[in-house]
């Protein structure tokens, strides 16, 4: 009996040892891969430390220039030949005249990337969402095309894809039957670059658009916003848009 007990103990030890090694060998790579996959979002993920915004100097924007709109159309391939009423307008130029002074203005208007976006509030599925850094986007995978966000947006900044699309740009996929709007070229921002409209505005020499992190006190936009007086569209609605206008 004693001999048998000793053998049993040894067998059990061997068994536990072998099983532990096997289990470790199977689980460890998974645990490591999981760690690697998690590490990316922890290190690179979007945080509310940043608030992306834009300052548009209306005095520098001219009515004959359409550079920002053309750049946007090219970048996102918004080229479908459809009637004007259903044509996508991620950014549009608007001419204004002050009713009191007759002074004329020209300015671009796009999604204002509000801090309190009504489109995000009303979206039933959560497809309209705001990233932690303030960029308002549409998740095209869960947008059901109810268009309630278009009803809610005070800036008419969203378009509905009314027709079948061909030759889409891979970096900016669009979807028939879903709602879309200015993304601030978010994939460029995540690579440390500027939205295409801002780049185009710089190229034309007008430099009417300053883009950057409004939370960074050293950024060009934060310094400019501190120095000059600017306004936002329909500020009375208290949506706190990320797009500011100077000289309006």
């Amino acid at each position, binding site marked *: 009996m004693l001999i048998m007990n000793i053998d049993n103990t040894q067998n059990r030890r061997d068994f536990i040892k072998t099983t532990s090694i096997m289990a470790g060998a199977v689980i460890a790579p998974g645990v490591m891969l999981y760690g690697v996959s998690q590490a990316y979002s922890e290190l690179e993920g979007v945080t509310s430390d940043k608030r992306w915004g834009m300052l548009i100097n209306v005095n520098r924007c001219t009515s004959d220039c359409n550079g920002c*709109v053309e750049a946007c159309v090219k970048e996102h391939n918004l080229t479908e030949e*459809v*009637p*004007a*009423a*259903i*044509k*996508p*307008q991620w950014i*549009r*130029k*608007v*001419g*204004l*005249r*002050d*009713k*009191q002074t007759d002074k*004329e*203005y020209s300015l671009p*208007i796009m999604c204002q990337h509000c801090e309190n976006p*009504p489109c*995000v*509030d*009303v*979206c*039933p*599925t*959560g*497809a309209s969402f705001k990233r932690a850094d303030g960029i308002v986007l549409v998740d095209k995978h*869960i*947008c*059901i*095309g*109810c*268009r*309630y966000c*278009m*009803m*809610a*947006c*005070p*800036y*008419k900044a*969203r*378009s*509905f*894809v*009314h*027709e*079948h699309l061909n030759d889409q740009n891979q970096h900016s996929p669009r*979807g*028939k*039957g*879903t*709602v879309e709007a200015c993304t601030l070229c978010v994939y460029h921002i995540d690579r440390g670059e500027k939205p295409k409209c801002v780049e185009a505005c710089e190229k034309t020499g007008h430099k009417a658009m300053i883009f950057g992190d409004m939370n960074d006190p050293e950024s060009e936009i934060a310094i400019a916003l501190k120095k000059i007086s600017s306004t936002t*569209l*329909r500020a*009375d*609605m208290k949506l706190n848009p990320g797009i500011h206008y100077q000289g309006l």
Partner: protein
Amino acid sequence: MKNVTFCVIKGSSPLFYAGIAISIIFIALGLYSAYNMEHHGHIITGMNNQIVWGLPHVFAIFLILAASGVLNVASISSVFRKIFYHPLARLSALLAITLLIGGLCVLVLDLGRPDRLVVAMTNYNFKSIFAWNIFLYNGFLLVCILYLWFMMERRMQQYYPTVGLIAFVWRLILTTGTGSIFGFLIAREAYHTAIMPPLFIALSLSLGLAVFLIALLIDCRETRCSLGENILHRPKTLLGVFIAAVFYFVFVYHITHLYFTGRHGIEYFLLAGGGVFTVLFWFGYIFLGTILPLLLLYHERFTHSRSSIAFASVLTLIGGLSLLYVIIIGGQAYPLEIFPGMEVTSSAFFDGASMHSYVPSIWEILLGISGIAIAALLTVIALRLLPFMPRSLADKDIDESLT
């Protein structure tokens, strides 16, 4: 207390078969429209990036309001204990279910991605009134089915008043939710007012009762159920009260807007310069939908005629549709004021337009009508299968003690 017995409709008359055939034709046309809208995209409709909700929404909300309102007849019986209405309660709850299904079908088929219905059922943003409404509509269907079951199952009779109360409260919350879809929109001047939910509740009561009276008159003809003057007189009087209630809320809505100088623009648009919307408001809603039915229901010369009641009910529905068209589409046709104090001199997106245009396409009209057809077909099938209709509604068979 006299026992009320219920029966199924015989389903052998030409009216029965004609009703089913017409409903199926319109449902098929509606499904074909939805298929086309899905296949080609909304480019084939009259909707665009300015008028994002078109005629299908008008029909869908019309049906949803009628659904919540039609249950009122059952509620009067079980919640307010007016047992006089008890024989009508089954038909009332049945119509609530079928009208809601019809409305929801239109709403879903008008989505840009109706194939993603599962997404809508599994992803919720609870700050969205739309998301609440998904729960409210589905819950309403469930509560109405329970209500009907308890009504029809003798063993469950003791719980009938409780579920009746739940259904009544639920329908009030549901219509509040439907009105809030518009009331919660800060962007558009025509909406963004807390009067929307009570206005929608009043409208649901008038539309619901009008639908009920029409269905009752048709069904009684089909089942050869004798319909007494008393049982028609009370709902008829009530319909007049509901029509007046809707007018009161519409009046207050416009007076409130007219008081704010900043909203004179939208008021001028709706009441004077809005083209089709102005015509629909004054002729469609005020004249056809309010003045005329009130005359038919209350004027000594017409008040005793059944045709007057039927005609008044149809006019109430036309008035309700007109009002919803003005609210839903007129509210979008009036341009957003993005730049207060400025005049828009140029825009590629109609920012300076005095009015956004919208002409409904045939696809939208067919899809909208198919919602009514779905409700009608489901009602007829249910009436054929289960005893929803009382065998007699003659005055002698309705116990006076019930009054």
